[in-house]
């Protein structure tokens, strides 16, 4: 089928017209001319009715149905919190009540603060922060240390008054102790271990980290600690454990005492007697002169290790007094090695780096007046010489006759005998050392100076006293009752006429502050250079203003020369071990049996002549040589 274009257009127009018609009709429902053309279907007559238009009230919407909305709101945040422990507060000192005559209360006023000098203004502010220890793992523990104020502001101007400004290395030591559970403060003698310890204790108490502390020290040092506590932390209540058993028991159990001081002997005795349940518990135990527990099998060491505690500190200027293994005993007390653990050198070195803080005067006190050592090599007087030669000859003969039954004790007795003769001849009383001492002392006394003399024997000290009468000597050794010792030291310090203090190494070498003495005499030599250094450092320590002159008396051509040679070698070894830990210390720092035998050329009679005697080591060394 085909269609013309005209026919298609007509058809399309017709369809459009129909649609148009319906549309018009629909629209016209709302117009005034409701002309409706309905298809003639016959089915719906209702459609022929005219529609009735009407109105309906529709309320206007006040807001649109949907609006994208956003309101600022508080986002809930999680928090991590830390409440720091309360520190101990102490009863404040009573303020003096000032009242005028008419009863009006007066208030003291302070003078205006001095303006600092320009140089002081420009000085950068020092700031020593407490760092969290490496073993503090929890965030709370670490934050506790980080949030503490710098030591300078904590100590200096605000809550805690310090009598003197500590040195920067002391601030570092205090901060190190404060954050250490286990610590060995091994600063060289005279650098202020006592002060650093007291200040760290003070901070720990004030920050609520510890509430009960036991300080254990040798008996002669108790007055020294009491005095230092009064100086550096006068507000801290300190109780010394002393008296009879019942009183001591009461003191051990007494509540509310932050610091107990006790000597090693009492601690050992009382804790041995106490049942484990009765033993007092401490937050911190401090061992002063901790080399006292170097023998880990001793009662003292066992008791010290068994004291219930949370923190363990040890103080000593000579952590290795004889051999490096002694450190193991200290580390065991500090609970950083297991019981009976024997760390090797590599482990010791690693532990030392972590738990030992040691500074030497050379490093930290570069502006400290020097210590001048001089050896006075003195020939014996003729009487001494004769007595010495006879004693040596007879002694060696007797030793040789002992043959293989010889012991170190026999040799030791001879050494002591000869050393005593080098001090003075017991028959005539002649003494080259005394002559030299008197000559030196005359100069020292004339210039108003003071000197300390150390000897191994109380007998020598007692012998010297009447012979030094013109210098008003004072005696301080183990034979002097403890209660009389402090007044002796006070007199030596304050009496301008008391020019010399005679001390024994055993009693006077540790813990005393005698930096006002500019001269030290070592009348005879101790067996261990570390002990000699401790003795010398009574005078050459912080606060010393002038050089300290140390004179060692050595009788020439005697056993003292030989001892001096060995001690020099020992001192070099000591410095190597403690200096940088790189030494290979395998030998004792005290004279050992081989060395004591080696002081003499001992030979036993033999059918073929004579042969050397003594411990095997001597023979081996000689053979090797």
């Amino acid at each position, binding site marked *: 089928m085909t269609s013309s274009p005209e026919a298609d257009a007509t058809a399309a127009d017709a369809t459009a017209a129909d649609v148009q018609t319906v549309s018009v009709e629909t629209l016209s429902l709302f117009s005034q001319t409701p002309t409706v053309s309905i298809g003639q279907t016959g089915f719906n007559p209702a459609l022929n009715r005219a529609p009735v238009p009407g109105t309906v009230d529709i309320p206007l919407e006040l807001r649109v149905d949907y609006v994208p909305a*956003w309101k*600022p709101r*508080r*986002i809930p*945040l*999680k*928090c*991590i*919190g*830390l*409440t*720091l422990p*309360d*520190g*101990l*507060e*102490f*009863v*404040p000192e*009573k*303020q003096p009540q000032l009242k005028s005559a008419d009863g009006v209360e007066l*208030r003291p006023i302070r003078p205006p*603060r001095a303006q600092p000098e320009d140089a002081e203004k420009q000085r950068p*502010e020092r*700031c020593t922060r407490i760092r*969290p220890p490496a073993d503090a793992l929890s*965030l709370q523990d*670490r*934050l506790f240390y*980080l*949030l*503490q*104020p*710098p030591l300078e*502001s*904590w100590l*200096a*101007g*605000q*809550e805690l008054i310090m009598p003197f400004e500590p040195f920067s290395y002391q601030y570092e030591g205090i901060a190190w102790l404060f954050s250490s559970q286990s610590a060995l403060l091994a600063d060289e003698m005279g650098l202020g271990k006592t002060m650093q310890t007291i200040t760290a204790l003070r901070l720990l108490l*004030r*920050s609520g980290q510890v509430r009960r502390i036991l300080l254990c020290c040798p008996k002669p040092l108790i007055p020294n600690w*009491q005095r230092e506590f009064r100086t550096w932390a006068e*507000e801290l*209540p*300190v*109780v*010394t454990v*002393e*008296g*009879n058993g019942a*009183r001591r028991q009461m003191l051990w159990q007494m509540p*509310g005492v*932050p610091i107990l001081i006790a000597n090693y002997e009492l601690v050992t005795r009382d804790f041995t007697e106490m049942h484990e349940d009765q033993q007092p518990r401490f937050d911190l135990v401090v061992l002063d002169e901790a080399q006292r527990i170097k023998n880990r099998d001793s009662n003292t060491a066992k008791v010290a290790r068994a004291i219930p505690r949370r923190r363990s500190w040890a103080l000593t200027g000579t952590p290795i007094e004889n051999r490096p293994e002694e450190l193991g005993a200290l580390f065991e007390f500090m609970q950083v090695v297991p019981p009976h653990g024997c760390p090797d050198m590599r482990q010791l070195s690693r532990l030392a780096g972590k738990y030992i803080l040691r500074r030497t005067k050379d490093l930290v006190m570069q502006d400290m007046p020097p210590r001048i050592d001089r050896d006075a090599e003195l020939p014996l007087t003729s009487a001494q010489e004769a007595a010495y030669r006879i004693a040596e000859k007879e002694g060696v003969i007797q030793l040789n006759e002992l043959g293989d039954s010889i012991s170190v004790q026999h040799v030791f007795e001879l050494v002591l005998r000869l050393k005593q003769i080098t001090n003075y001849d017991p028959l005539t009383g002649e003494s080259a050392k005394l002559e030299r001492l008197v000559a030196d002392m005359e100069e020292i006394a004339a210039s108003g100076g003071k000197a300390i003399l150390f000897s191994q024997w109380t007998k020598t000290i007692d012998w010297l006293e009447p012979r030094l009468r013109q210098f008003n000597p004072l005696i301080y050794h183990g034979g002097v009752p403890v209660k009389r010792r402090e007044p002796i030291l006070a007199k030596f310090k304050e009496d301008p006429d008391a020019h010399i203090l005679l001390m024994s190494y055993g009693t006077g070498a540790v813990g005393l502050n005698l930096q006002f003495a500019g001269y030290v005499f070592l009348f005879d030599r101790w067996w261990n250079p570390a002990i000699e250094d401790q003795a010398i450092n009574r005078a050459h320590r912080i606060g010393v203003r002038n050089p300290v002159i140390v004179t060692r008396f050595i009788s020439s051509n005697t056993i003292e020369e030989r001892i001096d040679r060995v001690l020099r070698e020992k001192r070099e070894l000591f410095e190597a071990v403690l200096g940088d830990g790189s030494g290979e210390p395998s030998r004792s720092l005290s004279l050992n049996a081989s060395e004591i035998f080696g002081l003499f050329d001992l030979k036993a009679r033999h059918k073929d002549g004579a042969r050397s005697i003594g411990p095997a080591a001597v023979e081996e060394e000689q053979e090797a040589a």
Partner: protein
Amino acid sequence: MESPSPAVSAGLQAAPLPVETSTAGYPGIIPERDGAGMSESGQEKQLRLGFLETIEIDGRGHIGGLLVTNHSGRPLEFQCTTPVRPNRTQEILFGETLRPWLLGELIGSTLLERVSIKPGLVITSDPSLLELQNHTTIPVALAEAQNDAAAHSLAGDEAASAAVPATRCVRVGNSLLRFHQGHNRNAESLERQQHLVPESANLQEPLERVREALAETVRTVFSR
């Protein structure tokens, strides 16, 4: 008969901890009594200080910390928030006010609500944190070292001044404290209390502690 040791005979005993009372408007400030310098119990009035800081962690937003100390800087309480990062909508809608809202209103207010020991004064080094003042009655101040303040003043450092919507200065310790515009009453209030803080106190230093503590928190907790 043994004589008592010197320390025992001196009668030194640990005393109960002093209790600080609170006032309605300034919880950390112990109310003055009779204008005297020492209270009846012998303890000095104290002003607790709050040190507020925030740090930004790369890609994780901001965390804030509030350290409450006593008048001499001894820490009493520390609170820090978890990291918070604004979303895109917040960034668009808050515009320039995003930082003050985030740091001051959101972080600052949260921390101030959470601390159980309320400070008497909140100190910060970030001008954005002054926004906190609009949401608390506790005075909020911006600490400036006196040298910095003098330098700004001498150099006429307008940019620095413009960044600090603060007006009145009060010297506390060795710092100058500026307060939010419109809250000069706080400055007047603090002037009456400033003697409670030692002259030598360095108010910048505890803010450094807060920053270190926040960094430690990030290292220890949020970096896991």
